[in-house]
C-alpha cells in the first residue's frame, strides 16, 4: 500500500513539477506569474485526447505531436498575452494571463464540448512486482516526465540556446545590446513552458477525466510547489512539485480525500511561515 502510494505520489508530484517548471521559466523570463499555466495543462490534455482517441495515433507519435502543438500554442500565447504588453506594468500582463485562462477554457468548451472526456492510458493495465501492483500509467508518467525535465535542464544549463534564454531572463535590455533577439528568446521560453505543462496534461489525462476545469487544481498545486521549492528556482520547482505530490496523495489516502487540497495549502502556509524563501530560495524579490 505504502509503495503504491509512493509511486502514485511521485507520478502526481512530477507532473506538478513540470507545471511548476513552466511557471518558473515564464516568471524568470518576463517577471510575471502566468495565471493560465493550469489551463495550458488542460489544453495539453485535450490535444492528447484528440491525437490519441480521435486520430488514433500511436503513443510515441502522439507524444511528439502533442509536444510540437503545445510549443506552438506557447508561441501564440506569448504573442497574444505578453508581447504587446511587454512595456507596460507587470500587473497588466498578469491580468492578461487571467484573461487567457478564461479564453482557453471557453475555447476548449467550444471545440470539445462541456462534458468530461476519458483517455486510455499510454500503457494500460497493472504492473506487478512481487506482491506490489502498480498502474503502468504512473510508471510511464514518472519516466516520461523525468526524461523531459532532464532534457529541459540540459537545454537551459549546458547549451548555447540555454545561455541566450538565461541572459534574456536576467536582463532583457542588456541581452538585446549584446545582439540577442529578445522576441525569439521570450517566445522560445513560452514555447518550452507550454510544452512541458501540456505534456504534464497529457500524462495525467488517463488518470483524471479531461475537462475544461481540470487545470485549476494542478495549476494551484504547482504554484504551491513553486513557492515551497523557492520562487524562481528550476530545481526548486521539481522538488517542490514532488513534495506537494507526496502531501497531496498521502493526505488523500490517510487523512481525508475531501480535504486533500486544503491540507496541501495548509502545508503551503506552514512552509511560508518556516522557510518563506523556499527550499532553494533566492532572496524574495519585489515582484513576488
Amino acid at each position, binding site marked *: 500500500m505504502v509503495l503504491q502510494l509512493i509511486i502514485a505520489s511521485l507520478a502526481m508530484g512530477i507532473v506538478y513539477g513540470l507545471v511548476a517548471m513552466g511557471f518558473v521559466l515564464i516568471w524568470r523570463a518576463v517577471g510575471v506569474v502566468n495565471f493560465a499555466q493550469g489551463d495550458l495543462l488542460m489544453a495539453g490534455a485535450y490535444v492528447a485526447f484528440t491525437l490519441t482517441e480521435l486520430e488514433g495515433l500511436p503513443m510515441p507519435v502522439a507524444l511528439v505531436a502533442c509536444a510540437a502543438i503545445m510549443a506552438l500554442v506557447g508561441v501564440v500565447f506569448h504573442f497574444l498575452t505578453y508581447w504587446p504588453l511587454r512595456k507596460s506594468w507587470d500587473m497588466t500582463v498578469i491580468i492578461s494571463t487571467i484573461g487567457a485562462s478564461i479564453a482557453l477554457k471557453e475555447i476548449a468548451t467550444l471545440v470539445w464540448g462541456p462534458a468530461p472526456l476519458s483517455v486510455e492510458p499510454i500503457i494500460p493495465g497493472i504492473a506487478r512486482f512481487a506482491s506490489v501492483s502498480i498502474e503502468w500509467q504512473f510508471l510511464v508518467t514518472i519516466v516520461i516526465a523525468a526524461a523531459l525535465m532532464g532534457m529541459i535542464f540540459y537545454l537551459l544549463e549546458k547549451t548555447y540556446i540555454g545561455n541566450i534564454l*538565461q541572459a534574456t531572463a536576467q536582463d532583457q535590455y*542588456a541581452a538585446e545590446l549584446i545582439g540577442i533577439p529578445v522576441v525569439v528568446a521570450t517566445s522560445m521560453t513560452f514555447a518550452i513552458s507550454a510544452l512541458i505543462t501540456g505534456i504534464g496534461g497529457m500524462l495525467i489525462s488517463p488518470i483524471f477525466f479531461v475537462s475544461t476545469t481540470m487545470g485549476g487544481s494542478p495549476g494551484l498545486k504547482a504554484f504551491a510547489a513553486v513557492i515551497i521549492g523557492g520562487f524562481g528556482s528550476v530545481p526548486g520547482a521539481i522538488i517542490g512539485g514532488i513534495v506537494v505530490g507526496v502531501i497531496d496523495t498521502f493526505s488523500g489516502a490517510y487523512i481525508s480525500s475531501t480535504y486533500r487540497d486544503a491540507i496541501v495549502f495548509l502545508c503551503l502556509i506552514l512552509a511560508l511561515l518556516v522557510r518563506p524563501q523556499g527550499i532553494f530560495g533566492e532572496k524574495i524579490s519585489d515582484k513576488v
Partner: protein
Amino acid sequence: MSPKNNPVMVLEKVCKRFGGVVAADDVSFELEPGQIRGLIGPNGSGKSTTLNLISGICDVEPGIILLDGEDITKKAIHERARMGIARTFQHPRLLSRCDIKTNLFLGHDLGNMRRASGASQEIDQSVDELLDVAGLKIGMDDSIKTLSYGQQKLLEIIRAILTKPKVFLLDEPAAGINTREMDRIRALIAIAIRNKAAVLLVEHSMDLVMSLCDIITVLNFGCVIAEGVPAEIQGNEAVIEAYLGRRRHA
C-alpha cells in the same frame, strides 16, 4: 588625426522628445574609425539620450543615423548590436547569474555568427591579452559576483572589445573607479582604437576626456553648443557658460 570624411557613423539632425522636454534637438556629428569623440555637457543635457538613440533604446523622431552608409534608424536594438555597435553602461550590466566565460562570449559568439568564422584561437589570445591589460586575474568559471565594481566595469569593456565593434559607445567608464583602474580603462580604449573602432565617450571626468579625445562635442539642453579639439573646447565661452553659468558684468 586620421583622414577626414571617412565616417563609419553619421548622425543627421537627430531629435528626441519626451513629452514637452526636448532631450535631443538636431544633434549631428560623425564618428570615424580609430578616433575618439568625447560627448560632454551638464547633467540632463542629452548625452545618455544620444547613446540610447544610437543603440536603439529610444526611437529617433525625426532624424537619421547611418552606419556604413546604411540607415539604421528603424533597426531593432539587437540588429544594431550585431551590425557592430557595442556599448557599456555607467553601472555595468553583466549577467550576474552566469560565469565570466558566458558573459564574455555570449555576445561574441553572436558576432561570430555574423562573420561566419571560427577563429577561436585568435579569440582566446585576445581574451588573454585584454585580461592582462585590464589586470584582471580571474578564472573563466568564476561568478560575476566575485568581481568588484571596477572589475565589472573593466570586464564589460573587454566584452565589448571582443565583439570587434565598429562603433563603441562608452557611458561614463571612469565613474566610481580608482585611479589604477582608470589607467587600465585608458589602455583598453587604446586597444579598441587600434582595432579601428570609432569610440564615443560620455564622461564627466574632464581629465580623461581632455587627454583621450581627438574631438569633443558639447551638448546643452539637447543641442550641440560646441565642437572642436580639446584645446578649443576648454577656451569656448559657450561651454564655460553652460557648465559654470554666465559671468555677471558689473
